[in-house]
């Protein structure tokens, strides 16, 4: 069983254990209402995290996602406020925002070889400002919060069959699709190759620049998609929406087992990671402990989780080493004979 399989099991195990604990403290946790909400929360971070996973597999990082969420939702608000554009068109347009951002990021990262972290941080800053600039204003020029009443837009944020939120459904579809894409298409393979050994990838004739630009565009698109669902769920959006949510996204991806060094990780892990994060954040509220203690608990749980993972890895390596040793001595025995 691969190291990743094990870490998955551990993560799932931890989640079950925590769920059990929380349920004992407060059975409401297990109520369908709560679980559905929990999944929706996980999905809102997760949709962004899926795109982010692609970026991180190419050994990159995309700090601009928060900005994309902000601008995208502002774009939506504007169209809903001033126009009667059909919703499908609107959604398409909003995804275009993310794609464009990704294109710009990718362009500077590949063409000019600028460090991802700072390029995307810069675009984040630009987008943050842009969101404020394009925000709907009142006569005095003050930002005005628009209350969305367009039902076909609100459709996204609400729940459907069995009370499952459409955000969750979208997350699952996106996740499964992305996983298949990563693992079972040439492009997917190229993404791993680009992250694991770019030189080799280039030698094999893979266009690593195109791949890189591609993943940043995908990351942007995912962020835009999330923006649609979040703004729809809140029936409005603020210019600062999503800014500062980067850390949660990154945490989901990292807890899911995708490494900053690139080349490893997958969407399953990220989906688990975002679920895990949503679970502790939602669960902690059920315990009724003081809001002062909550961040301590959350931070602690994250650290412990990662430590456990490192330890199980060490243990496995140790065991493998011993097995190898056995084989070695066995071979020597044969030589002697």
């Amino acid at each position, binding site marked *: 069983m691969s190291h990743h399989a094990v870490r998955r099991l551990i993560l799932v195990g931890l989640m079950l254990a925590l769920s059990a604990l929380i349920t004992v403290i407060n059975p409401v946790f297990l109520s369908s209402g709560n679980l559905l909400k929990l999944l929706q929360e996980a999905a809102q971070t997760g949709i962004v995290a899926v795109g982010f996973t692609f970026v991180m597999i190419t050994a990159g990082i995309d700090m601009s996602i928060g900005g994309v969420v902000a601008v995208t939702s502002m774009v939506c608000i504007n169209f809903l406020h001033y126009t009667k554009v059909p919703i499908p068109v609107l959604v398409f347009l909003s995804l275009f925002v993310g794609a464009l951002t990704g294109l710009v990021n990718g362009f500077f990262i590949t063409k000019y070889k600028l460090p991802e972290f700072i390029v995307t941080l810069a675009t984040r800053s630009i987008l943050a400002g842009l969101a404020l600039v394009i925000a709907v204003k009142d006569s005095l020029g003050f930002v005005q919060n628009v209350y969305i009443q367009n039902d076909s837009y609100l459709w996204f944020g609400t729940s459907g069959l069995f009370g499952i939120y459409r955000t969750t459904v979208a997350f699952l579809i996106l996740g499964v699709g992305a996983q*298949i894409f990563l693992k*079972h*298409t*040439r492009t997917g*393979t*190229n993404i*791993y*190759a680009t992250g*694991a*050994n770019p*030189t*080799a*990838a280039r*030698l*094999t*004739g*893979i266009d690593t620049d195109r791949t890189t630009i591609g993943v940043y565009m995908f990351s942007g698109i995912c962020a835009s998609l999330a923006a649609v669902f979040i703004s729809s769920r809140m029936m409005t959006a603020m210019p600062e929406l999503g800014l500062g949510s980067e850390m949660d996204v990154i945490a989901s991806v990292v807890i899911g087992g995708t490494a900053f060094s690139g*080349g*490893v990780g997958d969407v399953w892990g990220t989906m688990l990671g975002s679920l895990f994060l949503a679970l502790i954040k939602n669960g902690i509220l059920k315990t009724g402990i003081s809001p002062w203690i909550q961040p301590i608990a959350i931070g602690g749980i994250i650290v412990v989780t990662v430590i456990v993972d490192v330890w199980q890895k060490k243990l496995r390596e140790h065991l493998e*080493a011993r097995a*190898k*040793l056995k084989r*070695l001595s066995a071979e*020597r025995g044969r*030589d002697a004979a």
Partner: protein
Amino acid sequence: MTKVENGADLLLECRSITKSYSGHVVLDAVDFSVRRGEVHALVGENGAGKSTLIKIVTGATGRDSGEMVYDGTVVPMEHLRRDAEALGIAVIYQELSLIPGMTVAQNIFLGKEPLRPLTRLIDVRKMNDQARELIDRYNFPLKPTDLIDNISIAQRQLVEILKALSGKASIMIMDEPTSSLTKTEVEMLFKIIALLKSEGISVLYISHRMEEVYALSDRVTVLRDGKLVKVLDKEEISPEEIIRLMIGHKLEEKAVQHELTPKGGKVVLEVRGLTSVGKFEDLSFDLHEGEVLGIGGLVGSGRTELVRALYGADSFDAGTIRYLGKEWVPSVRKSIEGGIGFIPEERRLQGILATQSITRNIGIPNLDLIAPRGIVSVKEEDRRAARGIELLNVKPPRPEQLVGNLSGGNQQKVVLAKWLVRDLKLIFIDEPTVGIDIGAKEEIYDHIRALSARGVSVLLVSSDLPELTRLSDRVIVLRQGRFFQEFRECVLTGEKILRAASGIREGDDE
């Protein structure tokens, strides 16, 4: 080479290829040709233009002028990797171009994975089956589902070859393929080359190891300073000749055999029953003042592990070490302060700080001297750096030069310089000249000799047999982590060591 031998049977023909980077000419009207189904060696010092020529052939870079005809078709000026592959030009690179985290099959078919009909989805089973077929055809010791990370370097090279064969390769270009292989692995590679040849696939072979070129090639093209020196046919090929053509002057020594003369003097290092479980067992030997003790054996025989343990880089499980007569439990810091140096096996990964200047690289192990009270004396640091550069004539001799941008030879010189600028008593040297051109090699040899002349004891690990025989005063051969045989006061030849390393003991030498 049973095939017809006339110009008509040329697979690749390059006429007066010229290439210059920013005004500096690296290839000057070079003619070059490879026949169908021949093994052709391309030799020359680093900077002679070999790699540029290869890059042009494989479409990794463009040429300024000159014609190129491949398999009867004229190759246009803009000739890209893709086009080269389409033509059937396959390359096996020096630094392996495989993707960690992927399986053997995935690597073989990277970029050309078989797809499920009517979909863009990869047909994994089919891919593995095809990989399996290839593997069986050449009966390589591989499994399609093995992770690259878990197989040996030699196996990875086989994957490289399969990767090339999986396309319709009509020529296979091998750049320093054996630099990281053990004797047996090299032999396997040679078998494979023979096999390819028998299938009518031409092999263009680049190597610094003369004995290989000698053993393999049907023809040898020698380049020097971007110009074609000579094309040797099978019967003309001899290492001395090649080397003469390459570096213009004849080597004073025969590279094949060497007279061992033991050094007495006081014992510097005394090793007794040293054991590290799974690496080496019960090793005992003395190292005398100014002595060069060669450690022979195949990769994986525990040589590298031994010197690492002696240096303090790794721990060991049993045995005692005495250094300068005192009980000694090594640690890197203690070793350095005690006047012990270490030149690690893998220059790029273990030797150099690629993003740092020559000065900083030389400075790092000497911080105790250039920063006695924690504050770096820049004057002292620069002085030592200058001395190191001058001593080993590092090129370019610019102290602020980033070591990552130096040639392999000069990088290794910097690694050596780190230690030569401090007064050493003992130095461990592991594979000092892997992938380094003849010129630099000779210079490094001179320095090792100079060290021993200065009374510094040297423990030399090498897979390069001439190197071992020429430099050592005494040679110990390890096999599977155990002491196998010691050669002293005798005429030592490469194959004696090889035979010992491969487990054939011959008592009559003592």
